[in-house]
């Protein structure tokens, strides 16, 4: 017996239930339940975020100018993106115009975070869904060296001796029984398709990426003034510029520092071009028959857009990262998106553990309510404190269900690239077409788990280069005599109207991010975040539409029900971050994926 959802998926709960809790190698804590039929095909998918959210708990009554620092602490990954979104929301409420230099610096920082996050996500959180480090021990270092030179002739580290050393290091690790970061895997599963040489090459790049990623951070440290948790400022950026100034701790940004940033950008471009992209092509080639996981990507995608070319203009035409919505798979029409419109973005809770006065309606984030209401459905198995099986016909997740004009939407690099492609964004079109050409794949191949992973890599390549564009722009503007980095005209709350509201949006590495703020008498009255993983990880809504994670798991073949590497592969391809969509992780969030088959 099946049900057809309004967004076009046939759900059938008759097969055996597989529970994955927690899904590992993600930020935060999530659980998945699927029903698989007699051929091991997923016929029903339920994704739930455990724990509850609500940032207003912390921010209500505080100084809006401080909000960025608090939002930066929600999660360990998109720190800077949250901070940027927050300062934009406050600036929007107060009508603050920021200087061009501040816009350029913010864009460089945001793009730096994009590349950094994409690279780390691929190599350290996602690659092991495709790459088998244990199999890499069987590789022939000489053949690996030949493979490396074939896929990326410009990459200098490719000698047989180099790969032999890495292999020995890996062997030592595995033999010591500790496996380290490689312990959460199903290394005998037939879902792993790479030959040992490709596995060794990819594991080697895992280590190279781990070493290289530290350099990318330095850009944000230079402009943010502080390592790991950079500073941000309502009205601009907290760094002064004195182009001819001396180098000293705490001194303003000078030419020497800007030159250093340029060298980091150049090395980043080289690493992405010579390592990340060739790996994606190589893995894509060997897995291109595995085209599961498309989910909503071929149907409904959403991007708020980001990276304003000129300062203070957040209209689609001025945003270099695309903005728009596509619904019902109609790529011919990209619909305009307005984050202020109460009819467009709404959050629903009929299947979420919250209470609304009227749950048939959704609420726009400016009017958002976060009132926890935990109750299990009548068909749930287990107890309130130990759930064995969820009842998805009732409330079943701590994530709300945001919808765009009533549609469940996918957000993230793939969504941005589909919107950009449909709009005829030249750079994006060029990248996508040439990648598909190399792989000999049709455009429809984009709507898949691999498509999501590839779009992230292409976006990293794009973002790395765009940093150079804004660095040039910054230097040109300084040389033209403008060294201003902040506008403090409206810093004093005494100059503010009694009641105001604002919205800030960005494209976080993992998708569209918005902060909606209400300010009353100089203090925060309400603060709502709708984060990318709220969109992607959303449960069903009042009309029965399933969310993006759920949709992406549908109709996937699972090789071994007790080792659901396919589920991890697809969920990881979204780069999920449950830490902020649902808040705080379970105390057991670090154990091996616990799989129960019923």
């Amino acid at each position, binding site marked *: 017996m099946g049900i057809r959802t309004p967004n076009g998926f046939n759900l059938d709960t008759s097969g055996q239930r597989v529970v994955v809790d927690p899904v590992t190698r993600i930020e935060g804590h999530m659980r998945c339940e699927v029903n698989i039929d007699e051929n091991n095909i997923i016929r029903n998918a339920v994704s739930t975020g455990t724990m509850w959210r609500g940032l207003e*708990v912390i921010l209500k009554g505080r100084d809006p100018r401080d909000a960025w620092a608090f939002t930066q602490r929600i*999660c*360990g990954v998109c720190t800077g993106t949250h901070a940027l979104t927050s300062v934009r929301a406050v600036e929007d409420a107060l009508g603050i115009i920021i200087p061009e230099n501040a816009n350029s610096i913010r864009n460089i920082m945001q793009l730096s975070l994009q590349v950094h996050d994409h690279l780390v996500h691929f190599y350290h959180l996602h690659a092991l869904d495709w790459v088998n480090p244990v199999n890499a021990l069987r590789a022939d270092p000489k053949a690996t060296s030949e493979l490396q030179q074939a896929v990326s002739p410009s990459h200098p580290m490719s000698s047989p001796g180099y790969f032999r050393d890495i292999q020995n290091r890996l062997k030592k690790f595995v033999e010591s029984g500790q496996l*380290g970061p490689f312990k959460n895997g199903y290394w005998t599963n037939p879902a792993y398709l790479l030959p040992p040489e490709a596995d060794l090459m990819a594991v080697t790049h895992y280590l190279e990426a781990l070493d290289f990623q530290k350099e990318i*951070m330095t850009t944000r440290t230079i402009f943010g003034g502080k390592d790991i948790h950079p500073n941000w400022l309502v009205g601009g950026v907290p760094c002064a510029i004195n182009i001819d100034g001396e180098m000293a701790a705490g001194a303003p940004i000078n030419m020497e520092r800007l030159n250093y940033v340029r060298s980091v950008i150049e090395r980043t471009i080289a690493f992405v071009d010579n390592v990340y992209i060739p790996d994606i092509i190589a893995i894509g080639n060997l897995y291109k028959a595995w085209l599961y996981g498309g989910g909503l990507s071929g149907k409904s995608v959403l991007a708020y857009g980001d990276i304003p070319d000129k300062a203070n203009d957040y209209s689609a035409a001025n945003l270099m990262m695309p903005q728009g919505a596509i619904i019902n798979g109609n790529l011919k029409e990209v619909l305009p998106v307005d984050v202020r419109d109460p009819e467009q973005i709404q959050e629903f809770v009929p299947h979420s553990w919250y209470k609304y006065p009227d749950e048939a309606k959704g609420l726009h984030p400016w009017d958002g309510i976060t009132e926890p209401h935990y109750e299990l459905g009548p068909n749930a198995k287990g107890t309130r404190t130990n759930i064995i099986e969820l009842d998805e016909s009732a409330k079943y997740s701590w994530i709300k269900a945001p919808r765009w004009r009533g549609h469940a939407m996918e957000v993230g690099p793939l969504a941005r690239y589909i919107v950009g492609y449909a709009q005829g964004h030249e750079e994006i079109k060029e990248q996508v077409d040439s990648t598909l050409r190399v792989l000999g794949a049709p455009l429809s191949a984009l709507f898949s788990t691999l498509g999501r992973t590839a779009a992230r890599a292409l976006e990293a390549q794009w973002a790395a280069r765009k940093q150079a564009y804004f660095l040039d722009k910054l230097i040109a503007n300084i040389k033209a005599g403008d060294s201003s980095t902040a506008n403090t005209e409206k810093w004093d709350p005494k100059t503010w109207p009694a009641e105001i509201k604002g919205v800030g949006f960005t494209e976080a590495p993992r998708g569209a991010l918005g902060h909606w703020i209400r300010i009353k008498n100089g203090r925060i009255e309400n603060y709502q975040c709708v984060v990318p993983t709220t969109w992607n990880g959303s449960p069903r809504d009042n009309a029965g539409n399933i969310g993006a994670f759920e949709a992406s798991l549908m109709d996937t073949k699972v090789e071994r029900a007790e080792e659901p590497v396919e589920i991890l592969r697809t969920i990881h391809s979204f780069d999920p971050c449950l830490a902020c969509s649902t*808040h*705080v992780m379970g105390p057991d969030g670090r154990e091996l994926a616990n799989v129960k088959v019923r």
Partner: protein
Amino acid sequence: MNCAPRVLVLGIGNLLWADEGFGVRVVEEFHRLCETADNVRAMDGGTQGIYLVQHIREADILVVFDAVDYGLAPGTLKLVEGGEVPAFLGVKKISLHQTGFQEVLAMAEMMGDYPAHLLLVGVQPVELDDYGGSLRPAVKAQIEPAIEIAIEWLARHGATIAKRAEPLAEEETLASREMRIGIYESGRPRPEEACCHGDARLLANGAFAGPANFEREVDALLQSSGGQG
């Protein structure tokens, strides 16, 4: 040539979850009270994971402050050294961080740069399920003892830490101005304005309580971790 060992004094944890903020608050205070010479770095690691790997690789001596559930009396300090540290930081119900710090250490080790000396100064939390809350008094009272222990241990390992003649003002430390403890505590919304308790299931089932036999559980996990592939 400078032969002084490179020291990293690292506080980890989430400031937004009551006693989970212990590590970061200790390192802020350490920075306020102590001179950080060229070879000594104090760092607020927050809930960062992979971004911390490089800093650990650069250190000869690493001191980590953290709130860790050892199943001891709330507010108790517990010291763990050397090879035992990873096990204490990554085991179920022990650390609450998003990316296991155990994995961060393993990555540093895999890169071939592992600190020669490693000390974890952990505190048994009183309260974690209080979103937006600050350190509880029993945990706050352990900030200074934790620093003293670290200084004394560092001295034994060849790194002398000098106290500042005059401690820095709160706003001059490495703490972010917006999050420093005074502002953080005084600006908090009242409970009637915003609900701040945790997840009902965790509150109800006591999931944050320490394991009954901690040593045995660690042993079992360590033994089983090799065979999970």
